[in-house]
Protein backbone atom coordinates (compact mmCIF):
# COMPACT_ATOMS: atom_id res chain seq x y z
CA UNK A 1 0.00 0.00 0.00
CA UNK A 2 2.67 2.51 0.94
CA UNK A 3 4.57 1.57 -2.22
CA UNK A 4 1.51 2.54 -4.21
CA UNK A 5 1.19 5.80 -2.34
CA UNK A 6 4.81 6.52 -3.05
CA UNK A 7 4.32 5.83 -6.73
CA UNK A 8 1.32 8.15 -6.82
CA UNK A 9 3.39 10.85 -5.17
CA UNK A 10 6.22 10.36 -7.67
CA UNK A 11 3.78 10.72 -10.55
CA UNK A 12 2.14 13.78 -9.00
CA UNK A 13 5.46 15.47 -8.50
CA UNK A 14 6.55 14.52 -12.01
CA UNK A 15 3.36 15.97 -13.40
CA UNK A 16 3.79 19.19 -11.45
CA UNK A 17 7.44 19.59 -12.44
CA UNK A 18 6.63 18.92 -16.09
CA UNK A 19 3.67 21.27 -15.97
CA UNK A 20 5.66 24.20 -14.64
CA UNK A 21 8.47 23.55 -17.07
CA UNK A 22 6.14 23.51 -20.02
CA UNK A 23 4.22 26.50 -18.77
CA UNK A 24 7.33 28.50 -17.97
CA UNK A 25 9.05 27.92 -21.27
CA UNK A 26 6.03 28.46 -23.49
CA UNK A 27 4.63 31.49 -21.75
CA UNK A 28 6.52 33.69 -24.16
CA UNK A 29 5.90 32.56 -27.74
CA UNK A 30 8.89 34.44 -29.08
CA UNK A 31 11.03 31.80 -27.39
CA UNK A 32 9.38 29.17 -29.48
CA UNK A 33 10.04 31.00 -32.73
CA UNK A 34 13.63 31.66 -31.83
CA UNK A 35 14.16 28.04 -30.85
CA UNK A 36 12.89 27.03 -34.26
CA UNK A 37 14.43 29.82 -36.29
CA UNK A 38 18.03 29.57 -35.10
CA UNK A 39 18.50 25.86 -35.76
CA UNK A 40 16.81 26.35 -39.12
CA UNK A 41 19.60 28.71 -40.16
CA UNK A 42 22.19 26.05 -39.46
CA UNK A 43 20.27 23.19 -41.06
CA UNK A 44 19.61 25.31 -44.14
CA UNK A 45 23.32 25.94 -44.51
CA UNK A 46 24.03 22.21 -44.37
CA UNK A 47 21.36 21.37 -46.91
CA UNK A 48 22.57 24.09 -49.24
CA UNK A 49 26.08 22.71 -48.92
CA UNK A 50 24.81 19.29 -49.92
CA UNK A 51 22.90 20.78 -52.82
CA UNK A 52 25.89 22.71 -54.10
CA UNK A 53 27.89 19.48 -54.24
CA UNK A 54 25.05 17.77 -56.09
CA UNK A 55 24.41 15.32 -53.29
CA UNK A 56 21.68 12.68 -53.66
CA UNK A 57 18.27 13.57 -52.22
CA UNK A 58 18.61 11.04 -49.42
CA UNK A 59 21.40 13.01 -47.78
CA UNK A 60 19.24 16.12 -47.61
CA UNK A 61 16.58 14.17 -45.76
CA UNK A 62 19.22 12.70 -43.47
CA UNK A 63 20.45 16.17 -42.56
CA UNK A 64 16.91 17.42 -41.99
CA UNK A 65 16.13 14.65 -39.52
CA UNK A 66 19.47 14.86 -37.73
CA UNK A 67 19.32 18.64 -37.58
CA UNK A 68 15.87 18.60 -36.00
CA UNK A 69 17.13 16.24 -33.29
CA UNK A 70 20.09 18.44 -32.26
CA UNK A 71 17.90 20.47 -29.93
CA UNK A 72 17.27 17.43 -27.76
CA UNK A 73 20.92 16.96 -27.06
CA UNK A 74 21.44 20.56 -26.00
CA UNK A 75 18.32 20.31 -23.88
CA UNK A 76 19.59 17.19 -22.15
CA UNK A 77 22.87 18.91 -21.35
CA UNK A 78 21.73 22.38 -20.42
CA UNK A 79 18.27 21.81 -19.01
CA UNK A 80 18.75 18.39 -17.44
CA UNK A 81 22.46 18.14 -16.75
CA UNK A 82 22.84 21.47 -15.02
CA UNK A 83 19.34 21.79 -13.65
CA UNK A 84 19.79 20.20 -10.24
CA UNK A 85 22.90 22.27 -9.75
CA UNK A 86 20.91 25.44 -10.38
CA UNK A 87 18.19 24.11 -8.13
CA UNK A 88 20.75 23.69 -5.43
CA UNK A 89 22.09 27.19 -5.88
CA UNK A 90 18.59 28.59 -5.65
CA UNK A 91 17.70 26.60 -2.58
CA UNK A 92 15.09 24.47 -4.36
CA UNK A 93 16.99 21.24 -3.91
CA UNK A 94 16.93 21.58 -0.16
CA UNK A 95 13.16 21.96 -0.29
CA UNK A 96 12.83 18.88 -2.46
CA UNK A 97 14.93 16.87 -0.09
CA UNK A 98 13.09 17.80 3.08
CA UNK A 99 9.72 17.16 1.46
CA UNK A 100 8.16 13.68 1.36
CA UNK A 101 8.47 13.69 -2.44
CA UNK A 102 11.12 11.37 -3.89
CA UNK A 103 13.70 13.23 -5.98
CA UNK A 104 13.16 10.89 -8.90
CA UNK A 105 9.76 12.47 -9.38
CA UNK A 106 11.39 15.83 -9.87
CA UNK A 107 13.85 14.41 -12.39
CA UNK A 108 11.13 12.58 -14.24
CA UNK A 109 9.10 15.75 -14.49
CA UNK A 110 12.07 17.72 -15.76
CA UNK A 111 12.62 15.08 -18.42
CA UNK A 112 9.01 14.87 -19.52
CA UNK A 113 8.60 18.63 -19.62
CA UNK A 114 11.85 19.12 -21.52
CA UNK A 115 11.10 16.32 -23.97
CA UNK A 116 7.65 17.73 -24.64
CA UNK A 117 8.91 21.27 -25.20
CA UNK A 118 11.66 20.10 -27.49
CA UNK A 119 9.39 17.77 -29.44
CA UNK A 120 7.14 20.65 -30.43
CA UNK A 121 10.19 22.47 -31.65
CA UNK A 122 11.81 19.53 -33.40
CA UNK A 123 8.65 18.65 -35.29
CA UNK A 124 8.17 22.25 -36.35
CA UNK A 125 11.78 22.40 -37.52
CA UNK A 126 11.37 19.19 -39.50
CA UNK A 127 8.20 20.39 -41.19
CA UNK A 128 9.75 23.76 -41.97
CA UNK A 129 12.86 22.20 -43.47
CA UNK A 130 10.87 19.82 -45.58
CA UNK A 131 8.71 22.68 -46.91
CA UNK A 132 11.68 24.96 -47.53
CA UNK A 133 13.74 22.42 -49.40
CA UNK A 134 11.01 20.17 -50.70
CA UNK A 135 12.23 17.11 -48.82
CA UNK A 136 10.02 14.03 -49.03
CA UNK A 137 9.51 11.63 -46.15
CA UNK A 138 7.74 8.31 -46.22
CA UNK A 139 4.62 9.51 -44.45
CA UNK A 140 3.06 6.03 -44.38
CA UNK A 141 5.70 5.11 -41.85
CA UNK A 142 4.87 7.89 -39.44
CA UNK A 143 3.80 5.53 -36.66
CA UNK A 144 6.90 3.33 -36.54
CA UNK A 145 9.02 6.47 -36.81
CA UNK A 146 7.14 7.93 -33.88
CA UNK A 147 7.78 4.79 -31.87
CA UNK A 148 11.50 5.10 -32.51
CA UNK A 149 11.28 8.77 -31.64
CA UNK A 150 9.60 8.11 -28.29
CA UNK A 151 12.07 5.35 -27.41
CA UNK A 152 14.92 7.66 -28.31
CA UNK A 153 13.60 10.31 -25.99
CA UNK A 154 13.17 7.75 -23.22
CA UNK A 155 16.80 6.64 -23.51
CA UNK A 156 18.13 10.14 -24.06
CA UNK A 157 16.35 11.70 -21.12
CA UNK A 158 17.23 8.79 -18.88
CA UNK A 159 20.80 9.62 -19.75
CA UNK A 160 19.93 13.21 -18.92
CA UNK A 161 18.77 12.09 -15.48
CA UNK A 162 22.13 10.42 -14.91
CA UNK A 163 23.83 13.66 -15.91
CA UNK A 164 21.61 15.67 -13.59
CA UNK A 165 22.63 13.70 -10.54
CA UNK A 166 26.26 13.21 -11.54
CA UNK A 167 26.90 16.78 -12.61
CA UNK A 168 25.63 18.05 -9.30
CA UNK A 169 29.04 17.25 -7.91
CA UNK A 170 30.99 19.29 -10.44
CA UNK A 171 29.76 22.62 -9.22
CA UNK A 172 30.37 25.60 -11.38
CA UNK A 173 32.55 23.83 -13.91
CA UNK A 174 29.38 22.15 -15.14
CA UNK A 175 29.14 24.54 -18.07
CA UNK A 176 32.60 23.45 -19.22
CA UNK A 177 31.57 19.81 -19.15
CA UNK A 178 28.43 20.61 -21.09
CA UNK A 179 30.46 22.47 -23.66
CA UNK A 180 32.87 19.58 -24.01
CA UNK A 181 30.07 17.09 -24.50
CA UNK A 182 28.09 19.24 -26.92
CA UNK A 183 29.62 19.08 -30.37
CA UNK A 184 31.57 15.81 -30.04
CA UNK A 185 28.39 13.86 -29.32
CA UNK A 186 26.62 15.59 -32.19
CA UNK A 187 29.48 14.54 -34.42
CA UNK A 188 29.46 10.94 -33.23
CA UNK A 189 25.69 10.86 -33.60
CA UNK A 190 26.09 11.77 -37.24
CA UNK A 191 23.50 14.50 -37.06
CA UNK A 192 24.29 15.74 -40.59
CA UNK A 193 25.62 12.62 -42.28
CA UNK A 194 25.07 8.84 -42.28
CA UNK A 195 26.72 6.88 -39.48
CA UNK A 196 27.90 4.35 -42.07
CA UNK A 197 30.74 6.71 -42.92
CA UNK A 198 32.43 5.78 -39.66
CA UNK A 199 34.67 2.74 -39.44
CA UNK A 200 32.77 -0.26 -38.12
CA UNK A 201 34.39 -0.10 -34.67
CA UNK A 202 33.23 3.46 -34.17
CA UNK A 203 29.78 2.54 -35.43
CA UNK A 204 29.53 -0.07 -32.72
CA UNK A 205 30.81 2.24 -30.02
CA UNK A 206 28.44 5.05 -30.92
CA UNK A 207 25.42 2.80 -30.61
CA UNK A 208 25.43 3.51 -26.90
CA UNK A 209 24.45 7.08 -27.80
CA UNK A 210 20.65 7.14 -27.93
CA UNK A 211 20.76 10.17 -30.20
CA UNK A 212 22.81 8.30 -32.79
CA UNK A 213 20.52 5.29 -32.71
CA UNK A 214 17.36 7.32 -32.88
CA UNK A 215 18.50 9.44 -35.80
CA UNK A 216 19.67 6.37 -37.65
CA UNK A 217 16.40 4.57 -37.01
CA UNK A 218 14.20 7.41 -38.14
CA UNK A 219 16.26 7.86 -41.29
CA UNK A 220 15.94 4.21 -42.17
CA UNK A 221 12.18 4.37 -41.76
CA UNK A 222 11.29 7.81 -43.08
CA UNK A 223 13.79 8.04 -45.93
CA UNK A 224 14.99 4.57 -46.84
CA UNK A 225 11.51 3.04 -46.45
CA UNK A 226 12.65 0.25 -44.17
CA UNK A 227 10.17 -1.53 -41.91
CA UNK A 228 10.49 -1.76 -38.16
CA UNK A 229 11.50 -5.42 -38.47
CA UNK A 230 14.44 -4.59 -40.65
CA UNK A 231 15.82 -2.29 -37.98
CA UNK A 232 14.68 -4.28 -34.99
CA UNK A 233 18.17 -4.13 -33.48
CA UNK A 234 17.82 -0.37 -33.15
CA UNK A 235 14.51 -0.81 -31.39
CA UNK A 236 15.93 -3.38 -29.00
CA UNK A 237 19.03 -1.34 -28.26
CA UNK A 238 16.99 1.77 -27.55
CA UNK A 239 14.74 -0.07 -25.13
CA UNK A 240 17.72 -1.69 -23.43
CA UNK A 241 19.58 1.60 -23.16
CA UNK A 242 16.51 3.36 -21.85
CA UNK A 243 15.98 0.82 -19.11
CA UNK A 244 19.65 0.61 -18.17
CA UNK A 245 20.07 4.38 -18.05
CA UNK A 246 16.88 4.78 -16.06
CA UNK A 247 17.95 2.25 -13.46
CA UNK A 248 21.39 3.80 -13.21
CA UNK A 249 19.80 7.21 -12.78
CA UNK A 250 17.63 5.98 -9.91
CA UNK A 251 20.62 4.33 -8.22
CA UNK A 252 22.81 7.37 -8.74
CA UNK A 253 20.19 9.55 -7.19
CA UNK A 254 19.85 7.32 -4.14
CA UNK A 255 23.60 7.18 -3.75
CA UNK A 256 23.91 10.89 -4.18
CA UNK A 257 21.27 11.66 -1.62
CA UNK A 258 22.94 9.40 0.91
CA UNK A 259 26.35 10.85 0.19
CA UNK A 260 24.99 14.35 0.37
CA UNK A 261 23.38 13.74 3.72
CA UNK A 262 26.61 12.35 5.08
CA UNK A 263 28.95 14.99 3.74
CA UNK A 264 26.64 17.94 3.74
CA UNK A 265 27.27 18.60 0.07
CA UNK A 266 23.66 18.58 -0.99
CA UNK A 267 22.95 21.78 0.77
CA UNK A 268 26.35 23.43 0.66
CA UNK A 269 26.85 26.03 -2.02
CA UNK A 270 30.06 25.99 -3.90
CA UNK A 271 30.65 29.63 -4.58
Amino acid at each position, binding site marked *: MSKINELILVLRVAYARAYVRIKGVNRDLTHFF*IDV*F*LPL*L*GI*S*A*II*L*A*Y*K*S*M*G*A*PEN*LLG*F*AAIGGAMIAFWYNVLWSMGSQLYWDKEQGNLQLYIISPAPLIGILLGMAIGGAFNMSLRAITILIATSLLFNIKFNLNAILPAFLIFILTLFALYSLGMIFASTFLRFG*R*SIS*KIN*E*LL*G*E*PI*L*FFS*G*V*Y*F*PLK*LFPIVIQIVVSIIPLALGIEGMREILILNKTLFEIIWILILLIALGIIFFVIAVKMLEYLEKLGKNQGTLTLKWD
Partner: protein
Amino acid sequence: MGLKSISLLRILFWLSYQIEANWTKFFIYLIYITIRPTFTLMLMIFIYIAVSAVKGPSLEYGYYILVGQAFYNLIGSGIIGIAYTFWDDKEHYKMLKYIYITNVKLSFYLFGRGFYHFVEGLYPLVIAFVLGAYIIQYPLFELKPNFPLLLLNIILGFIWITALGLLVASFLLFTTNYGWIVIDSVVSSLLLFGGVLYSTEILPYPLNLVANYLPIKYWLDVNRNAIKGIDITSVFNDLIFLIILSAAYLIIALIIFRICENIAKRKGLLDIPISF
Protein backbone atom coordinates in the same frame (compact mmCIF):
# COMPACT_ATOMS: atom_id res chain seq x y z
CA MET B 1 47.95 53.87 -30.95
CA GLY B 2 50.14 55.29 -28.21
CA LEU B 3 52.33 53.52 -25.70
CA LYS B 4 49.63 53.79 -23.10
CA SER B 5 47.11 52.04 -25.33
CA ILE B 6 49.53 49.21 -25.98
CA SER B 7 50.20 48.62 -22.33
CA LEU B 8 46.47 48.80 -21.68
CA LEU B 9 45.89 46.27 -24.40
CA ARG B 10 48.42 43.99 -22.72
CA ILE B 11 46.56 44.27 -19.44
CA LEU B 12 43.24 43.50 -21.09
CA PHE B 13 44.79 40.53 -22.84
CA TRP B 14 46.08 39.20 -19.55
CA LEU B 15 42.79 39.91 -17.80
CA SER B 16 40.86 38.05 -20.48
CA TYR B 17 43.14 35.07 -20.14
CA GLN B 18 42.64 35.04 -16.39
CA ILE B 19 38.89 35.19 -16.70
CA GLU B 20 38.71 32.45 -19.31
CA ALA B 21 41.29 30.03 -18.00
CA ASN B 22 41.30 30.43 -14.23
CA TRP B 23 39.29 27.27 -13.69
CA THR B 24 41.97 24.87 -14.80
CA LYS B 25 45.58 24.23 -15.75
CA PHE B 26 47.03 25.79 -18.87
CA PHE B 27 47.46 22.44 -20.58
CA ILE B 28 43.86 21.37 -20.00
CA TYR B 29 42.69 24.76 -21.12
CA LEU B 30 44.57 24.29 -24.40
CA ILE B 31 42.75 21.04 -25.01
CA TYR B 32 39.45 22.49 -23.90
CA ILE B 33 39.54 25.33 -26.41
CA THR B 34 40.30 22.99 -29.31
CA ILE B 35 37.48 20.50 -28.75
CA ARG B 36 34.57 22.61 -29.90
CA PRO B 37 36.11 24.10 -33.04
CA THR B 38 37.60 20.77 -34.03
CA PHE B 39 34.37 18.85 -33.77
CA THR B 40 32.36 21.58 -35.46
CA LEU B 41 34.81 21.39 -38.32
CA MET B 42 34.56 17.60 -38.42
CA LEU B 43 30.78 17.83 -38.60
CA MET B 44 31.12 19.91 -41.75
CA ILE B 45 33.98 17.94 -43.26
CA PHE B 46 31.86 14.81 -43.06
CA ILE B 47 29.23 16.42 -45.23
CA TYR B 48 31.84 16.48 -47.92
CA ILE B 49 32.88 12.92 -47.12
CA ALA B 50 29.25 11.78 -47.33
CA VAL B 51 28.99 13.19 -50.82
CA SER B 52 32.34 11.83 -51.96
CA ALA B 53 31.33 8.38 -50.71
CA VAL B 54 28.58 8.50 -53.32
CA LYS B 55 30.05 10.59 -56.10
CA GLY B 56 33.77 10.07 -55.65
CA PRO B 57 36.12 12.63 -54.08
CA SER B 58 36.35 16.15 -55.38
CA LEU B 59 39.09 17.75 -53.36
CA GLU B 60 38.21 21.29 -54.35
CA TYR B 61 34.91 21.04 -52.45
CA GLY B 62 36.72 19.54 -49.52
CA TYR B 63 39.22 22.35 -49.46
CA TYR B 64 36.46 24.94 -49.78
CA ILE B 65 34.64 23.62 -46.74
CA LEU B 66 37.84 22.99 -44.79
CA VAL B 67 39.10 26.56 -45.04
CA GLY B 68 35.60 28.01 -44.82
CA GLN B 69 34.67 26.26 -41.61
CA ALA B 70 38.10 26.59 -39.96
CA PHE B 71 38.05 30.36 -40.38
CA TYR B 72 34.35 30.60 -39.66
CA ASN B 73 35.14 29.20 -36.21
CA LEU B 74 37.54 32.08 -35.74
CA ILE B 75 34.78 34.54 -36.62
CA GLY B 76 32.61 32.87 -34.05
CA SER B 77 35.17 33.19 -31.29
CA GLY B 78 35.91 36.80 -32.27
CA ILE B 79 32.29 37.94 -32.21
CA ILE B 80 31.42 35.92 -29.17
CA GLY B 81 34.61 37.21 -27.58
CA ILE B 82 33.37 40.76 -27.79
CA ALA B 83 29.63 40.44 -27.60
CA TYR B 84 29.29 37.64 -25.11
CA THR B 85 31.99 39.07 -22.91
CA PHE B 86 30.18 42.34 -22.92
CA TRP B 87 26.87 40.81 -22.10
CA ASP B 88 28.37 38.64 -19.38
CA ASP B 89 30.22 41.53 -17.80
CA LYS B 90 27.12 43.60 -17.91
CA GLU B 91 24.85 40.97 -16.43
CA HIS B 92 26.99 39.04 -14.05
CA TYR B 93 30.15 40.76 -13.09
CA LYS B 94 28.77 44.27 -13.00
CA MET B 95 32.22 45.06 -14.22
CA LEU B 96 31.22 47.75 -16.65
CA LYS B 97 30.78 50.29 -13.93
CA TYR B 98 34.41 49.89 -12.94
CA ILE B 99 35.53 50.28 -16.48
CA TYR B 100 33.83 53.64 -16.61
CA ILE B 101 35.42 54.62 -13.36
CA THR B 102 38.90 53.75 -14.62
CA ASN B 103 38.36 55.98 -17.61
CA VAL B 104 39.01 53.34 -20.25
CA LYS B 105 36.79 53.76 -23.25
CA LEU B 106 34.23 50.98 -23.32
CA SER B 107 34.84 50.35 -27.00
CA PHE B 108 38.54 50.00 -26.31
CA TYR B 109 37.89 47.60 -23.48
CA LEU B 110 35.78 45.43 -25.76
CA PHE B 111 38.37 45.73 -28.49
CA GLY B 112 40.95 44.37 -26.06
CA ARG B 113 38.80 41.52 -24.85
CA GLY B 114 37.89 40.66 -28.44
CA PHE B 115 41.55 40.74 -29.44
CA TYR B 116 42.29 38.07 -26.87
CA HIS B 117 39.56 35.77 -28.12
CA PHE B 118 40.61 36.28 -31.70
CA VAL B 119 44.21 35.36 -30.95
CA GLU B 120 43.10 32.45 -28.82
CA GLY B 121 40.97 31.23 -31.71
CA LEU B 122 44.00 31.00 -34.02
CA TYR B 123 45.37 28.02 -32.15
CA PRO B 124 42.39 25.66 -32.54
CA LEU B 125 42.07 26.92 -36.09
CA VAL B 126 45.46 25.48 -36.99
CA ILE B 127 44.83 22.21 -35.17
CA ALA B 128 41.40 21.73 -36.71
CA PHE B 129 42.68 22.67 -40.14
CA VAL B 130 45.49 20.13 -40.10
CA LEU B 131 43.25 17.40 -38.73
CA GLY B 132 40.55 18.18 -41.29
CA ALA B 133 43.05 18.16 -44.13
CA TYR B 134 44.28 14.79 -42.97
CA ILE B 135 40.75 13.38 -42.89
CA ILE B 136 39.84 14.51 -46.37
CA GLN B 137 43.33 13.50 -47.52
CA TYR B 138 44.22 16.89 -48.81
CA PRO B 139 47.89 17.05 -49.75
CA LEU B 140 49.01 19.61 -47.21
CA PHE B 141 52.57 19.71 -48.55
CA GLU B 142 51.45 20.99 -51.89
CA LEU B 143 50.23 24.17 -50.24
CA LYS B 144 52.58 27.13 -50.63
CA PRO B 145 51.01 29.71 -48.36
CA ASN B 146 51.54 33.35 -49.19
CA PHE B 147 52.26 34.32 -45.60
CA PRO B 148 52.33 38.11 -45.96
CA LEU B 149 48.98 38.00 -47.72
CA LEU B 150 47.61 35.64 -45.10
CA LEU B 151 48.82 37.88 -42.29
CA LEU B 152 47.32 40.95 -43.94
CA ASN B 153 44.06 39.11 -44.36
CA ILE B 154 43.98 37.97 -40.76
CA ILE B 155 44.46 41.55 -39.63
CA LEU B 156 41.64 42.64 -41.92
CA GLY B 157 39.57 39.84 -40.46
CA PHE B 158 40.21 41.08 -36.98
CA ILE B 159 39.00 44.51 -37.99
CA TRP B 160 35.68 43.54 -39.51
CA ILE B 161 34.99 40.86 -36.94
CA THR B 162 35.59 43.37 -34.17
CA ALA B 163 33.30 45.80 -35.96
CA LEU B 164 30.56 43.20 -36.16
CA GLY B 165 31.09 42.33 -32.51
CA LEU B 166 30.74 45.99 -31.57
CA LEU B 167 27.52 46.25 -33.57
CA VAL B 168 26.09 43.29 -31.73
CA ALA B 169 27.28 44.75 -28.44
CA SER B 170 25.50 48.02 -29.25
CA PHE B 171 22.33 46.06 -29.51
CA LEU B 172 23.03 44.15 -26.31
CA LEU B 173 23.21 47.41 -24.40
CA PHE B 174 19.43 47.44 -24.52
CA THR B 175 18.56 43.84 -23.89
CA THR B 176 19.15 41.48 -21.03
CA ASN B 177 17.35 38.27 -21.66
CA TYR B 178 17.94 37.93 -25.37
CA GLY B 179 21.70 38.37 -25.39
CA TRP B 180 22.63 34.89 -26.49
CA ILE B 181 19.95 34.82 -29.12
CA VAL B 182 21.17 37.96 -30.82
CA ILE B 183 24.74 36.72 -30.86
CA ASP B 184 23.68 33.31 -32.12
CA SER B 185 21.54 34.75 -34.89
CA VAL B 186 24.35 36.88 -36.22
CA VAL B 187 26.89 34.07 -36.15
CA SER B 188 24.45 31.58 -37.72
CA SER B 189 23.46 34.01 -40.44
CA LEU B 190 27.09 34.33 -41.42
CA LEU B 191 27.20 30.57 -41.94
CA LEU B 192 24.24 30.81 -44.23
CA PHE B 193 25.18 33.93 -46.18
CA GLY B 194 28.96 34.04 -45.91
CA GLY B 195 30.20 31.53 -48.45
CA VAL B 196 31.47 29.23 -45.73
CA LEU B 197 30.32 25.84 -46.96
CA TYR B 198 29.21 26.75 -50.46
CA SER B 199 29.51 29.57 -52.92
CA THR B 200 26.93 32.25 -52.24
CA GLU B 201 25.77 32.12 -55.85
CA ILE B 202 23.49 29.19 -55.08
CA LEU B 203 21.43 31.29 -52.66
CA PRO B 204 18.06 32.35 -54.08
CA TYR B 205 17.82 35.79 -55.64
CA PRO B 206 17.61 38.57 -53.09
CA LEU B 207 19.57 36.62 -50.52
CA ASN B 208 22.66 36.21 -52.68
CA LEU B 209 22.92 40.00 -52.85
CA VAL B 210 23.13 40.19 -49.08
CA ALA B 211 26.32 38.20 -49.26
CA ASN B 212 27.98 40.80 -51.47
CA TYR B 213 27.89 43.34 -48.69
CA LEU B 214 29.29 41.05 -46.06
CA PRO B 215 33.07 41.09 -45.72
CA ILE B 216 33.11 37.42 -44.80
CA LYS B 217 32.66 36.20 -48.35
CA TYR B 218 35.70 38.09 -49.67
CA TRP B 219 37.68 37.36 -46.58
CA LEU B 220 37.23 33.60 -46.87
CA ASP B 221 38.04 33.65 -50.57
CA VAL B 222 41.26 35.55 -49.96
CA ASN B 223 42.10 33.03 -47.24
CA ARG B 224 41.50 30.12 -49.56
CA ASN B 225 43.79 31.63 -52.15
CA ALA B 226 46.44 32.83 -49.73
CA ILE B 227 46.81 29.42 -48.14
CA LYS B 228 47.13 27.75 -51.49
CA GLY B 229 49.78 30.26 -52.45
CA ILE B 230 48.36 32.33 -55.20
CA ASP B 231 50.01 35.62 -55.94
CA ILE B 232 48.33 38.75 -54.84
CA THR B 233 47.11 39.96 -58.23
CA SER B 234 44.54 37.23 -58.69
CA VAL B 235 42.74 38.22 -55.50
CA PHE B 236 43.32 41.91 -55.98
CA ASN B 237 39.68 42.84 -56.47
CA ASP B 238 38.50 40.80 -53.52
CA LEU B 239 41.21 42.30 -51.37
CA ILE B 240 40.39 45.88 -52.28
CA PHE B 241 36.74 45.28 -51.67
CA LEU B 242 37.50 43.65 -48.38
CA ILE B 243 39.62 46.58 -47.23
CA ILE B 244 36.89 49.05 -48.13
CA LEU B 245 34.18 46.98 -46.45
CA SER B 246 36.23 46.39 -43.30
CA ALA B 247 36.99 50.08 -42.94
CA ALA B 248 33.37 50.99 -43.54
CA TYR B 249 32.14 48.42 -41.02
CA LEU B 250 34.56 49.62 -38.41
CA ILE B 251 33.64 53.27 -38.80
CA ILE B 252 29.93 52.56 -38.79
CA ALA B 253 30.27 50.24 -35.81
CA LEU B 254 32.22 52.82 -33.79
CA ILE B 255 29.68 55.51 -34.54
CA ILE B 256 26.69 53.33 -33.76
CA PHE B 257 28.29 52.01 -30.61
CA ARG B 258 29.04 55.52 -29.42
CA ILE B 259 25.46 56.62 -30.04
CA CYS B 260 23.98 53.57 -28.31
CA GLU B 261 26.36 53.90 -25.42
CA ASN B 262 25.29 57.49 -24.88
CA ILE B 263 21.63 56.61 -25.02
CA ALA B 264 22.18 53.74 -22.60
CA LYS B 265 24.10 55.98 -20.25
CA ARG B 266 21.40 58.60 -20.36
CA LYS B 267 18.78 55.99 -19.61
CA GLY B 268 20.93 54.61 -16.82
CA LEU B 269 21.00 51.15 -18.38
CA LEU B 270 24.65 50.55 -17.71
CA ASP B 271 24.49 50.47 -13.96
CA ILE B 272 21.61 48.15 -13.35
CA PRO B 273 21.47 44.67 -14.70
CA ILE B 274 17.77 44.20 -15.27
CA SER B 275 17.42 40.45 -15.06
CA PHE B 276 17.06 38.32 -11.97
